[in-house]
């Protein structure tokens, strides 16, 4: 291959990646940035799931692995949102953390608010964030023999990391709860640690 040939190839390369570079070279602090293509992300995510699937023994392992990957994302999302958004500050109370997750984080990640935020009727330390149509799971259909698998484990990992960053460590799991016309409806269940709930009570009493 001659030098000019290589050069022309390189030129072509810079041309095609110009748009991508624009995305990468934007100021990180800008709150309204260009969006990432859903298709591209779907391919990456599918590959993440496939990669993890080849390295685990069972469904629970797979969810744990996705959760782990989500956590790495979550820590970064937290820092980035803190820096980017003007009107938020680091939360430390349970309810504020949940509202922060429900609105700010969801808007930053999925460009919309989560569809509902509820407290579990059975126990005080359990809260549920529901997303009727999680964008990143749009193209995934879980085969019947893995019916208990919830690909939302990735999202629950993100949520878990952010809750921890807000000083409210919780065990976060995700469950697919299909509803009429919403086959992908995913519920993210947060169960806060005992210490967090005790601290909440103390703070509540000290008021």
């Amino acid at each position, binding site marked *: 291959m001659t030098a000019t040939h290589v050069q022309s190839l390189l030129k072509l390369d810079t041309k095609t990646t110009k748009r991508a570079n624009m995305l990468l070279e934007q100021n990180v602090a800008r709150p309204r940035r260009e969006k990432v293509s859903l298709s591209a992300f779907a391919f990456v995510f*599918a590959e993440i799931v496939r990669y993890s699937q080849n390295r685990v023994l069972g469904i629970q392992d797979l969810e744990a692995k996705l959760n782990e990957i989500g956590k790495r994302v979550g820590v970064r999302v937290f820092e980035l949102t803190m820096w980017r958004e003007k009107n938020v500050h680091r939360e430390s109370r349970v309810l504020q953390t949940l509202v922060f997750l429900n609105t700010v984080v969801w808007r930053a990640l999925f460009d919309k608010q989560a569809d509902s935020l509820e407290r579990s009727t059975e126990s005080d330390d359990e809260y549920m964030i529901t997303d009727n149509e999680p964008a990143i799971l749009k193209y995934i259909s879980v*085969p019947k023999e893995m019916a208990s698998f919830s690909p939302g484990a990735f999202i629950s990992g993100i949520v878990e990391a952010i809750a921890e960053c807000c000083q409210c460590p919780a065990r976060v799991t995700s469950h697919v709860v299909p509803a009429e016309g919403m086959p992908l409806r995913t519920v993210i269940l947060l169960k806060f640690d005992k210490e967090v709930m005790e601290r909440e009570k103390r703070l509540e009493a000290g008021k």
Partner: protein
Amino acid sequence: MVGGFTKSISSFTYRTFFKKESTYFTTVVASGVAFSIAFNTMFEKYWDNKTAGTKWIDIKDRYAKDSKLGQLSSNEALTLAGTFHGIHVLASRISPATKGSQSVKDSGIQTIDTKNFRIHCYQTPTGIKFMAATDLLETKLSDVLVKMYGLYSDYALKNPFYNLEMPIRSEMFDSRLVQLVKTV
């Protein structure tokens, strides 16, 4: 008091179950039957849970023939696709219109008519063929087949549980496909 209570219970058990030979026998048989029923149901439940998704009843629809009239079975579809691929390639090679030029290739066969039905084919730039067998009233189906290509690249290729070159088993793909076909 407690001792007396236990004693009265044990003597009650003795009197009602073990004293007479016939009741003793009945007790043994009845408890045996009860235990075996309980054990069976529990074990069955455990087994059902453990093998969920792999039993015949769960995978039946994957193998059983579709009962709808006029549907191709998966074997017939494979035969059709295999045979068609050959003549498709042949047709694009021997096309007299593009004969002699190496760069321009014919797009191959797009429809085949028989007396009763028509086969449509759409070949994507990557060489995947989408085919449909319809009745003779459908003259042009390429738009639908292009849309099918869209569905395939969305719901099959972006699904982490789909393996290339394998039959597509995705509920969402199926439901969207049925939706699409119903609009035709």
